[in-house]
Structure formats: C-alpha cells, structure tokens
C-alpha cells in the first residue's frame, strides 16, 4: 500500500526539499514517505478502506516491572540460575515452559515464544520507553507508543468506539502512553482508578435530550462557521465532538456485568481477569488496540513467591482470553502480545530476588498472523546470553506490524525528517509469522 499514490486532503502542500525531489522523480520509488498530512488523509473514504487491515486488533498484556523469563517462557531447571521450579511439557512436542504456567502449556498451539530479546536497557523508565515505542528516545522527537501507532494504522477516523484504550489501575509505575508526533487524535483513553474511562458518562445535571440537543446546536454552529472558512484542523475538531456520543454509547463495553456469569467465571475474579474480559469486549466491538497492565513483577526480593502468585494470574487470564477469542472466531484477527519492559537476572541475589535484566529475555505473540506452537531464539544454558536469533525492540515491533499486515518500512514525515514506523534497520522475524 503506497500512501503516496493517494491524494492528500491537505490542500496546503508545503514545498520542501523532499517534495521537490519527489516531483523531480529523484526520490527512490521504493519508499516514499507519508507526509504528516496523510494523517488527515484518513478522512478520504477510498484511502480509509484500502488502508485498514480489515478487522485486526491487538491486545497487549503488559507485565509491568519486568517478569522473569526463567519462571515463565524460558525455564532453566537444574542450573544454578534455575530457581526452585521445574519445567513442563506443553501440547507442542519439544516445547517446555515453566511449571508456573500449566494452563498455557496446553494452549501453546496459538502462541509463539521469543526467547532471544536483547534490548540492553535495564532501568524501568528508559526500558519502558524502549518497549513501548520500539526505539531509544531522541531529544526533541516524541515517538508514538505502540498503541497510538496501531490506532493510527488500524483505527477508523470517525469510529464510534475508542481506538486506543489502556487500563492500569495499579498505583505502582502508572504509565499513560502517548501518541507523540502522531498527534492528540491517537492519545489513549486511559482508565485509572475505575473500570470506566473518564468523562464518558453524562452528568446527572443535564438530561439525555438536552445533552443531545446542545450537541446538535454545536454542530449547527460548526456548519455555519464552515461556510465562512474550512480547514482540516476544524474537521478534526468537529470529528472529536462527533465521536463523543458514540463513545458515551460505548460505555456498556466497559460493563462486564453484561457478560454471562459463565464467561465472567472463566476469566475469574481478579482485576486483571476482569480487565482482560473488558479488553475482549472492546476488541469485539472494533477497538484496535487495548493494553491491560498487570503489576508489579519487579521482584528484587522474594522472586519465587512473587512469581508463584503473579504467574497464576497471568496463566489463568491469558488462557481465558485466548480461549474466549478462539471460541468467538476472533483469534485469527486478534494479536495478543505478552510483554514487559525487560526480564530478570538469571543470578539470584541475596534476597532470593532477581534484578533487572535486558540481555536475554522472553515474550510471546499469539493469534493474528502468528505461527503458533513455535519458539524463536535461544539463550545459553544458564540464561545469561542470547546464543541464537538475537532480537531487539525494533525487530519485535517490525514483527508485530508484519503479523498485522502493516508494512514495517512505512515512513511518517516529522517536519522534514522521515521516521520509519519500525526503527531503522529493523526486520520482522519471519520464522514465527504465519
């Protein structure tokens, strides 16, 4: 899909060096950059249709604080670094995972495990930036987080549902996410202290009819103004208001009371489980990106007790989510990512904890576009280094985009600078793509 083949809605084309180059035919035909105005071009119906990767969704299960790869996807029992837990055979011959994930062991046919992440950065703040944007920060350039990029690629401009929802009710390490240079249109709807987004409910002080009538009056004022002057920024403003009623009507998506008791039981009573269920409801309604964060895996002390508790929740909720998506025929179009900012040290410290570790750790991708039942990459026998298939954050992001059918070479123009959607020189890992 070449964005440049499409007419831009932005009539105010700027004359810069790149556009001159393009006009002169001097630019490479392989990758012409999408101008920032192409964001506006989503308004073009033809473009909208052809751009959208029909019906694809992402649910990110974010393991905040950094889960241990040794107690999850890359166990090393019997080694000094292995800890007390053993490994179990999964339903895929030859693949073994930690005994702390028994439910997932029987559901691995839809999941690919990556055991060779080497992302180098091992402090929470910077590692979080890296794993949420797929690249190291640069001064004066605000990179969008994965959710905003996906919302931009998969969302419908006038969608009646949110296109980027992030749930994080824990008080520790709360991170909101930002659309960076993609603009406020793609900022997340953030659920903080309750299970309902802010300002989605009508106040009691205004009736339903009055709320609607005044919105209609606003539209009328906007239309009269549009006769005097028009501009894409006004369209975006109107579109933000046009979406209010739809978003308010989507409040039921956040209400799991509407699910049958059996489904709610399946996800379980934990907050993480309930949020996974909300995520499924949102995905089903067409929300392209939902992030559910589970904290707090930062087990500098008592690593094994911590993982015993948290892995049980992860194992149960992730399994329930995959089961539910599969039963509804949604797993082929929904990519479930299980990821944190880093893993944990193979060496066990004096407090029986594991510290931050970004040199050889794991994550999983399930569902949409993924070759299930596969493992990519390998760490050494103690889990200290990657010995096969080293992958960095950019490669992981390129793989995610490829799984969703998004061209990972695509570029955004930020000012006069082309920024590829996945970091420079990154490549998808085709071994785990369907």
């Amino acid at each position, binding site marked *: 899909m070449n964005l440049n083949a499409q007419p831009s809605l932005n009539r105010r084309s700027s004359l810069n060096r790149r556009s001159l180059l393009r006009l002169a035919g001097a630019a490479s035909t392989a990758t012409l950059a999408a101008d920032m105005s192409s964001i506006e071009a989503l308004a073009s119906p033809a473009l909208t249709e052809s751009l959208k990767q029909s019906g694809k969704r992402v649910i990110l299960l974010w393991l905040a604080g950094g889960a241990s790869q040794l107690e999850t996807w890359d166990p090393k029992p019997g080694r000094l670094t292995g800890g007390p837990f053993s490994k179990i055979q999964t339903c895929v011959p030859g693949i073994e995972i930690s005994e702390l994930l028994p439910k997932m062991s029987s559901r691995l046919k839809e999941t690919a495990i990556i055991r060779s992440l080497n992302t180098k950065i091992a402090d929470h703040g910077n590692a979080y930036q890296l794993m949420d944007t797929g690249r190291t920060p640069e001064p004066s350039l605000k990179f969008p987080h994965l959710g905003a990029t996906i919302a931009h690629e998969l969302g419908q401009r006038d969608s009646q549902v949110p296109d980027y929802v992030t749930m994080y009710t824990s008080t520790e390490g709360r991170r909101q996410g930002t659309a960076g240079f993609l603009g406020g249109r793609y900022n997340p709807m953030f659920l903080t202290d309750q299970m309902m987004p802010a300002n989605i409910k009508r106040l009691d002080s205004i009736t339903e009819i009055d709320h609607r009538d005044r919105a209609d009056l*606003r539209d009328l004022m906007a239309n009269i103004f549009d006769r005097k002057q028009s501009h894409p920024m006004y369209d975006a403003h109107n579109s933000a208001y046009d979406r209010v009623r739809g978003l308010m009507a989507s409040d039921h998506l956040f209400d799991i009371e509407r699910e049958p008791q059996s489904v709610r039981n399946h996800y379980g009573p934990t907050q993480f489980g309930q949020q996974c269920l909300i995520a499924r409801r949102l995905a089903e309604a067409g929300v392209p990106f939902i992030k559910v964060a589970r904290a707090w895996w930062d087990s500098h002390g008592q690593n094994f007790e911590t993982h015993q508790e948290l892995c049980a929740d992860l194992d149960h909720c992730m399994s329930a989510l995959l089961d539910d998506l599969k039963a509804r025929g949604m797993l082929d179009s929904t990519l479930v990512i299980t990821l944190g900012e880093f893993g944990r040290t193979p060496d066990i410290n004096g407090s029986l904890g594991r510290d931050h570790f970004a040199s050889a750790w794991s994550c999983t991708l399930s569902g949409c576009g993924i070759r299930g039942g596969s493992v990519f990459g390998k760490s050494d026998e103690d889990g200290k280094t990657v010995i096969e298939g080293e992958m960095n954050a950019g490669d992981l992001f390129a793989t995610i985009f490829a799984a969703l059918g998004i061209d990972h070479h695509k570029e955004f123009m930020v000012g006069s600078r082309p920024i590829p959607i996945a970091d420079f020189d990154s490549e998808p890992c085709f071994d785990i793509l369907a």
Partner: protein
Amino acid sequence: MRTRFHPVLLCLLFSAVATASTASSPMQLAREIDRLINQQCAPELRAELVGESQYIRRATLDLAGRIPTVAELQDFRNSESLTKRQDLIQQLVSSADFAFHQRNELDTLLLRRLEHNDNWRAYLLEATRENRKWDELFRQIMVPEDDEDHRSAAFLRKRISDLDSATNDSSIAWFGVNIGCAKCHDHPLVMDWTQAHYYGMASFFKRTFQTRAGSVGERFDGSIGYTTTDGDSRKSEFMFLTGTKLVEPDSELEEAKQKEINEAIKKSESDAKAPPPPQPQFRPRSNLVRIALADTEQNFFARNIANRLWARMFGRGLIHPLDQAHSENPPSHPALLDLLARDLREHEFDLRRTLHAIALTDTYARKAHAKDPPPDELFAGAIPRPLTPHQFSLSLLIASANPTEMQGLSSKQEWNQQREELEQKSESVARQLEIPDDGFQVSVTESLWFSNHPQIQNEYLQSGGNRLVGSLLRFESDEELIREAIQAVLCRDPDPDEMTAMLQYLQNKTERRTDAIGQIVWALMSSPEFRFNH
C-alpha cells in the same frame, strides 16, 4: 502523497532576493513587511482584510493571550479614530496582558512542560514586564551562574543530566536548528550538519553540572570522544553551527590546585549551602553565547527568534518547520527574514517591537480564504491556529464571566489586578491541555472533558450573577440575549441563521430556560470558532 505546488511561488522562491532596508518605527517596518510579502503574492490571491470584530479578537488573542471582553469589543467598534487599529495594537502591546502572554509563550518555547516551575515563571514574568531584551535573556538563561538569581537556571537544570537534550534542545530553542540526526552519522538529508557539528555543539555543554543550590557550574576540563560512521575515533572540538571553532588556551593546573577545585565542585554538587563552585578561566557556555551573538553572517540567533515570532502570529514560519534552518530548507521569503532579523539586532532584540510591527501589517489582517486557499507559504490569507492552553483557558474564563464585571482594558485601573487573578485561575485547566504542534488535532479526551466534566458545568456554565449565564437570564428579549451571548463568546454579532436556530432552541425549552441558556453558551464555547484563532 501528491504535492501540489504553486507556479507563482516556485518562480519567486528562486528569484533574486530583493533587498530591504530597515525602518525606524513599527509602522514603517510593517509597511516594509507588506511590500516583501506582496512581491511574492499576486493581488488576486490575497484575501481581503478582516472586519473590526475579527481583527480585535485575533489581535487580542495574539498580543494579550485571551479573547477581548464585550466592553473592549464595543469600545473598539464605537471608536471613530482614523487610526483605531494602530491605537488598539499600541494599547495591547503596552498592556499587563502582553507581559503575561509573552511569559507563557517563552515558558512553552524554553521549558516545553519539562516541569512547571513557579520560580522560573516568576523570573520570566519580571523579564517580560520590563521587556527585557532577547539577547539578555539568552545570556541569563544560558549562563545562569553569573547571576545570584538562580531562577533562570531552570532551562539548563532540566536538561543537563542528559547531554543530548541539552545540546539539541538548546540548538532548537535558540538557533532553530535540529541536529539530533547528526549524532550518529552526518545528517543524511542536510549537507550542513555533520557529526562534527553535533559534537561541536555538545562540547559547549559537556562540562556543565548542576549545583545543589539550584544553579549550574562548569568543570575545568572534559571533552567528548566519538566514532564516525567510518569507524574513526575523534575528539570533539568547540564548534558552533557556523563552523566557528574555539581553541581552548593551554592551562596546566598544579596537582594540588586541581584537587582543591575538584573538591569544591564536588561539594557544590552535594551541599546546597556550599559556596558557588570555582569558575574556570575558559568557560564554554559563555563562549557559546558570545559566538552566537557575534554571528551576524548566518545570524542563527536573530533569524530563529524572528522566525518564531512570525510563526506565532501567522501559524507558519518563514522557515518551516521552525527547527529546520539549513540550506536545504530555504525561507519562503529570504529578504523578509533578513529584514526582521536585522531589525531585531538594530533594536537591541526588542521582541515587542517585532510583534507590534507584524500586528500592524495588512498581511496579518487578512481573512482566511473560504475555500481552496493558495499555499500557506504565500501568506495570502490567514492560517487558523489552535488556541494555546493558556489562551484557551483564559478565554473560557473571560467568556463565561458576567460581561459587566469583565471590562478588560476598558477599565485600566482594576484590570491589572483582575488579570493577575485570571492568570492564576487559568493555570489548572491550561496544564491539562495539549500544547499544539504542527499537525495538531483536538483529541476526544478534550471533547469528552468538555462534554461531561463537572468543571465545565460548575465553572463555565454556572448561573450565578457574576457569570455569563446568570447575566443572560436578566434579558427579556431573546434576541438581545443571543446577541450578548455570541458577543461574549465569539466576539461578533449573530448570523441570521444562528439567531433563528437559537431562538427556536430557547422556545423549545421555555420550561428549562436557565438550562437552555447554559446549553447555548456551551455550544458556542465548544465550537471550532472559539477553539481557534482565525
């Protein structure tokens, strides 16, 4: 993306640069600006000038940082002075509002919300109140240790823990140059910027450290080693963007002296009560300031601020984007940018004078084209600009007040105090709003907030007597009521279609008249016409 370009523009862009002479008064400068803009823009492309209501709204937003009050609007309309537009601009640039607005703009430019710092903001306000000159601010902010007042150190203090931020943010804010790309390799698109430039600029900041007392200091040595893309190891030189290099004089310190200095620096880093650290003879940042101010050839410092002031008033820089000053991205109007930069130098970097002159131009007073505008870079008509967080928040407070209690500059004495209170009151909402950048789009977070947050109802739509909704309740004539509401919020008279629709609205809800009036006010405040400067 298909790029359309304008034939007129294309020939003129590469045509000979007309020379322009500097002017003595803001009005003369304004005429010169118009002449240079009109040279590149055929008369038939130029939009007509706005009417008086739109003019006062635009100018008040740009120079006072808020919409005009109803009293100001009426005074302006009623004035029979032949020079009423000039009088208005003179009044606005001399007002208390101007200093607040200028402070908010400089805070955004320099600190970019890295922190909200009341001391720094107070420092900026003092500076804008006395119209302190831009080169003076540059010196104070970049070499804060020369003053006892540590407040100006916030710019460096927020960045110095990360050398890349200090380097690139300084280059962008003061010189309009983004050299971030040249850190790892020579700039791929722009011949001007090489790794040597990046590390050359970085070396001016390399020795800077933060003191516990809240200022900064400089070490006596320190340089940066880097590797080129060819794998060669290099040591950075002190080099400004122009290529001007600085050779550090040799100075061998005795070991004992060196030790003493290091200990004093260490102490100042950890102890707020320690004396200021010793200053080296050779001071990189002072030298950077000196070299940058002495650069009259490429004139990065003056051209950057001239370009930024222009962009603030027009929604687009003469060089655009604003951080892309280099040979591959020439200004749309080279002679005009030269003129503005030269004028700033000749008038001691008086930013108020530049804004004053720009506001007096016909170019500034043009309408937006209704449909199919010529390319923005011709400045043939107004480009709409989203209100900044402070403009929006302040304007909501002004619009939602009882107009008789919000006189603005029509009552000079009381206004200064009232304006100060409004400034404080506007802070909390302003801080929640996004700072608009290129490609800004209002988010659903904002539209949901404006639709459903209790603050909107309780603050802006409240029906007490000191509020707009309360004051409208007293009107017996619906037509008068609607006229007043539209004047208070949109600073103009109603259009017949609006009048009809709103009369109908009130009639449909006679049993809930207070609510209906509040809803009308809400619809006006949530309209794009209110959210943008146009």
